[in-house]
């Protein structure tokens, strides 16, 4: 709860910085503020009474852990994207929007009432719509903002219709009360089934699962690189956390209605995302499809429908977010010099840029799920939690997808060693810092996974 207060105050500070003329240092204030928020979040661990605001939000351990993941990602993102805040005129607006999007993400992981879920999604989405279109004169940025806006509000419509049906059946928005209603053999099954189906559609749009993924590659490619990095880490983490919380808490007893649908969605997402990623020639777009396929793996945790699934999800989102931020830092450094993000631009960079190459190799290996990096254990824990209740069919599909993914992740690494360009990509100090922190965290999480997962 204190985290929410601190993040919102930081957002307001961002607005004030425009009026009171300290916007030059607002970026640094935001980083320090997020570090404070991270510290405060940790103190809320094992809170005896986690409910706040008349049961609107609950900061139980799972929410606290997801909040911590989001804030750590936020700090790394702010460090890695200084170039996004170059423009003197809009620095305060952009920082404020990013901070408010974090507020939305925290609402989405800690909601205890569907009102809060809706408001969290909207706070997050509206900020990101504006950020995606922040290059006003660039047509692809405009297009990306428009597509994201249309698809986002379309998905919100489905989500709200789902909430309305669930409310019609259970007469409540509180997820625990809905859970009690669902467990006592609900009477209005038509309303419940329709509601669950519509909620599945709405949330699948948000995590960009196939067949509701078609907006993602365009939006990710058109938006400024830093915003793409924000979208594929924080937005995805918050959306899957909301998905997990809603389906395991409220609909945990109704597995018969949503499990078959979601199993198919997860399987198709993994396979389609990975196969289409193979054919991409643009690194940004390739990472967009890789993000889609990761949404499929994340859905395994929802299907696992147990506490281990939640723990695995926290580990996986942290590992995925760190690797993705490292990858995007590399891509944006290259794009700064070369002007685009095609694979061609990466040719021959392997010879003279040791840090860049090590960071690329480690982030790609971690995303592909190769031991001993964090991504491997993320997948391992997800599969383990899924197998507690289910058979191996979906796991085999996921492994096949993983094998395909190795091809395109390695392609980026191989491209870096092809040809002999002598070009040196200059990295800013903060970019170097992010790469080093990212490499250390990825290896450390891989070597002692209990560090994150054993705590509970």
């Amino acid at each position: 709860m204190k985290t929410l207060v601190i993040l919102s105050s930081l957002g307001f500070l961002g607005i004030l910085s425009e009026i009171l003329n300290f916007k030059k240092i607002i970026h640094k204030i935001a980083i320090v503020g997020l570090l404070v928020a991270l510290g405060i979040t940790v103190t809320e661990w094992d809170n005896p009474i986690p409910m706040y605001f008349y049961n609107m939000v609950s900061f139980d351990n799972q929410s606290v852990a997801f909040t911590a993941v989001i804030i750590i990602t936020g700090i790394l993102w702010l460090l890695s994207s200084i170039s996004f805040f170059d423009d003197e005129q809009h620095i305060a607006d952009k920082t404020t929007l990013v901070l408010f999007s974090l507020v939305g993400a925290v609402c989405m992981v800690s909601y205890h009432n569907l009102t809060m879920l809706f408001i969290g999604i909207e706070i997050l989405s509206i900020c990101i719509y504006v950020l995606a279109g922040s290059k006003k004169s660039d047509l692809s940025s405009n297009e990306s903002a428009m597509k994201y806006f249309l698809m986002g509000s379309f998905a919100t419509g489905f989500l709200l219709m789902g909430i309305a049906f669930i409310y019609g059946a259970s007469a409540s928005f509180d997820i625990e009360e809905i859970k009690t209603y669902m467990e006592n053999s609900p009477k209005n099954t038509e309303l419940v089934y329709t509601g669950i189906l519509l909620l599945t559609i709405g949330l699948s749009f948000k995590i960009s699962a196939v067949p509701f993924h078609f907006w993602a590659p365009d939006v990710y490619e058109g938006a400024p690189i830093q915003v793409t990095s924000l979208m594929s880490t924080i937005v995805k983490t918050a959306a899957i956390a909301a998905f997990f919380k809603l389906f395991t808490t409220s609909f945990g007893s109704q597995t018969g209605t949503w499990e078959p649908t979601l199993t198919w969605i997860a399987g198709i997402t993994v396979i389609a995302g990975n196969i289409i990623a193979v054919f991409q020639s643009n690194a940004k777009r390739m990472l967009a499809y890789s993000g889609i396929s990761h949404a499929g793996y994340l859905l395994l945790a929802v299907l696992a429908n147990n506490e281990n699934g939640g723990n695995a999800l926290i580990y996986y989102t942290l590992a995925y977010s760190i690797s993705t931020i490292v990858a995007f830092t590399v891509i944006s450094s290259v794009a700064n010099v070369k002007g685009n993000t095609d694979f061609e631009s990466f040719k021959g960079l392997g010879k003279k840029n040791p840090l860049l190459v090590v960071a690329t190799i480690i982030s790609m290996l971690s995303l592909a799920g190769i031991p001993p990096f964090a991504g491997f254990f993320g997948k391992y824990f997800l599969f383990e939690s899924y197998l507690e209740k289910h058979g191996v069919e979906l796991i085999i599909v996921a492994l096949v997808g993983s094998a395909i993914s190795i091809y395109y992740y390695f392609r980026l690494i191989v491209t870096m060693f092809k040809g002999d360009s002598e070009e040196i990509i200059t990295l800013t100090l903060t970019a170097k810092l992010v790469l080093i922190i990212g490499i250390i965290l990825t290896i450390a999480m891989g070597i002692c996974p209990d560090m994150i997962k054993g705590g509970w």
Partner: protein
Amino acid sequence: METLQAIPLNHYILLSAALFSIGVMGVLLRRNAIIIFMCIELMLNAVNLLMVAFSAHHGDGKGQVFVFFIMAVAAAEVAVGLSILIMIHRNTNTTDIGFLNKLKF
């Protein structure tokens, strides 16, 4: 309340579902961005109607409060959407979404 009880709840559900479907079809079929906005608004208003009907049916106010949230948020969303549209109109002089085809597979 009296009149509401005279009309069975099912009719409200059917009306909302019809409005919602019209909104969805509009989003999928129309090519003009402003009309797509209107169709999204139609979807949200179908939800509002349904929430209010259920709220009256159950006799508790939570659904009606939710409707206020939806209205406020929808207004904010449209404000952002229209400003994005103005930005695009400045660059392309059109509101037809057929122009949004730079990014493709």
